[in-house]
């Protein structure tokens, strides 16, 4: 009899709540019961609240068991886990989990499904098919397809990817680069990580397509150092791809050369800003560059460089496979396609939900998220990371659409959604926004470097009840200055969360308890 396949995620969140121990215990119990199993370490499906989510394959169907602890495993085996039998941890077939089936899995469809480090499994699931198609289509048609899709940068800025690729393709230069921004520093975001851990070969293929489209022979991934497991998975995936002839010179006899080097960040938030990232990749301090010149003209080592976020790149293979029009048929207005929304913070069912733009925050938080983890009312939702506004409860019906969010003074960003319940003190959150900017500012421009430090002081005075009205005006003025005069989004957008607190939670300034308590 063939070995029974058992899937246990090798993914940061799952492991952070015990998946490795569960895998070890499953192997041990199988041995004890004299059962032959094939233990596959997949990525996560993104239903993080169910991690560790273990699956067993019975009659070609994957049966899921959720929130499995190592101490459950013996009991599960006794109950008939390997034949998918009932147990308190049993959820049912994975493909019937409501959290997962109601998604639009365009970019993340292989995550959870495949063995991330198996070229064979990847190939079985359309791996490198888009690259082969790109070779047939030719570079110009690939760029046209990306333009047609309306795909915008998923790192936060939302710049049209096709136009960026065209600019690099048109730029003069014998050496061009693809720089994948995997410095996913925004709190409440982890979709890049889920993709890199669950489908690293998919990212590699995406970078190769970008390289082919703009005639770049070299790619770099700038990965944040807070993701050590991701690093090990990516390193192995790059090696595997190289060994099987999918990276290197004359890939699969196509005449196309491409290779990838992995660079680690070093704990600096601002290195997620594209020019600071390029500086860091050159071995320097991650200090923001003036723009222009755009990185597309003069980027890494002064060469034309495509800088794209992980999810932006990873959206491309299906755009090639299924067509730009198909992608553009998802979403609303100028926000075409899908975004991987990440439900985080005080939420009952946290995880990743890939949906077409246009869905509302309320749908995500209530239908997927199940409300707060504490069971208390939602007070504020920070969307788009530490530079994103706090959205009050009565605006949760705003559709997730880049422009609709700008209209309410907020931003979609990288799709992180951090929920706070009514125990949160928003003055403390406004103070943190300024404090974080002061800690992470690269220091190049004055509004960001000095403004953030002054911002903390002004908020402290307001909280202390010291000339509250005057300090309120001063804080607004400071926000104006930072917004208008900062070099990059760090200083320029730190006012967003601060202003939202001033606007919707002003009463918290009079009830805030001290600075850091």
């Amino acid at each position, binding site marked *: 009899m063939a070995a029974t396949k058992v899937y246990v995620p090798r993914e*940061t*969140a799952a*492991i*952070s*709540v015990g998946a490795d121990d569960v895998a070890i215990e499953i192997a041990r119990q199988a041995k004890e019961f004299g059962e032959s199993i094939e233990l596959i370490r997949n990525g996560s499906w993104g239903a*993080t*609240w169910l991690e560790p989510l273990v699956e067993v394959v019975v009659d070609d169907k994957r049966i899921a068991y959720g929130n499995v602890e190592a101490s459950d495993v013996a009991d599960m085996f006794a109950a008939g886990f390997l034949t998918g039998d009932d147990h308190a941890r049993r959820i049912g077939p994975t493909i019937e989990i409501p959290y997962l089936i109601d998604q639009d899995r365009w970019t993340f469809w292989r995550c959870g499904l495949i063995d991330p480090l198996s070229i064979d499994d990847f190939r079985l699931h359309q791996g490198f098919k888009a690259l082969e198609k790109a070779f047939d289509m030719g570079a110009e048609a690939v760029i046209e397809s990306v333009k047609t899709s309306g795909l915008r940068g998923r790192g936060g800025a939302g710049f049209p990817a096709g136009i960026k690729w065209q600019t690099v393709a048109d730029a003069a230069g014998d050496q061009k680069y693809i720089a994948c921004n995997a410095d996913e*520093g*925004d*709190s*409440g*975001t*982890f979709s*890049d*990580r889920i993709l890199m851990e669950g489908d690293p070969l998919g990212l590699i293929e995406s970078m190769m397509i970008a390289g082919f489209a703009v005639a770049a022979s070299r790619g770099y991934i700038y990965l*944040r*150092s*807070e993701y*050590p*497991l991701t690093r090990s998975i990516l390193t192995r995936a790059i090696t595997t791809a190289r060994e099987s002839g999918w990276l290197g010179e004359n890939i699969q006899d196509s005449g196309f050369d491409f290779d990838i080097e992995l*660079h*680690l960040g*070093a*704990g*600096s*938030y601002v290195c997620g800003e594209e020019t600071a990232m390029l500086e*860091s*990749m*050159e*071995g*320097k*301090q*991650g*200090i923001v560059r003036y723009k222009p010149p755009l990185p597309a003209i003069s980027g890494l*080592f002064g060469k034309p460089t495509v800088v794209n976020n992980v999810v932006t790149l990873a959206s491309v293979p299906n755009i090639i496979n299924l067509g730009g029009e198909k992608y553009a048929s998802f979403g609303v207005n100028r926000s075409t396609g899908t975004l991987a929304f*990440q*439900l*985080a*913070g*005080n*939420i009952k069912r*946290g*995880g*990743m939900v890939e949906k077409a733009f246009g869905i509302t925050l309320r749908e995500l938080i209530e239908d997927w998220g199940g409300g707060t*983890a504490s069971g208390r009312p939602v007070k504020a939702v*920070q969307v788009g990371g*530490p530079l994103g506004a706090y959205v009050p409860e009565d605006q949760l019906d705003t559709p997730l659409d880049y422009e609709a969010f700008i209209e309410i003074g907020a931003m979609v960003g990288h799709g*992180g959604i*951090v*929920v*706070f*319940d009514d125990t*949160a003190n928003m003055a403390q*959150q406004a103070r*943190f926004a300024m404090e*974080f900017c002061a*800690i*992470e500012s690269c220091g190049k421009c004055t509004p960001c470097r000095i403004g953030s430090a002054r911002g903390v002081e002004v908020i402290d005075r307001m909280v202390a009840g010291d000339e509250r009205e005057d300090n309120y005006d001063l804080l607004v003025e400071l926000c104006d200055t930072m917004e208008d005069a900062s070099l990059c989004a760090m200083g320029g957008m730190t006012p967003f969360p601060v202003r939202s607190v001033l606007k919707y939670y002003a009463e918290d300034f009079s009830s805030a308890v001290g600075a*850091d*308590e």
Partner: protein
Amino acid sequence: MTTETFNRQAAIEIIASFESRAEMLVQILHGFVVRFGWVSEDAIRLLAAELNLSRAEVHGVVSYYHDFRTTPPGKHIVKICQAEACQAMGSRELSTHAEETLGVDMHSSNEEVTLEPVYCLGNCACSPAVMIDGKTYGRVSAGRFNDIVASIGETS
């Protein structure tokens, strides 16, 4: 974590593994931190010489990034996420708890442990999150924190 503060030969090997390319400075420094735990003045001098950079340039990079410490850390490094998703789940209280139970303030060390803030471990659906000696833990209540610390104490 290693106890060796600096070893010239090992350092030269790390630099050589990056082909002595100056643009790999950040990567080389990571190698130093893995090997020695911190970046000493000797390390900075050697890097400047080997990479043909000024000591000021190397020092600038070392001091710019949170990951590169210039004093020896404790035997274990405990990082507690202080970013918004974890704040929403009580990371401020957890940090206070950690300071009390470990007997060391945030941003400081004793021989046993270094306690540091970190701004997002990307484990925001399992907040609050903690990283100890490079391993990420999620859904960390005060009780779970104590259990994890105790289990690490036993194995070391």
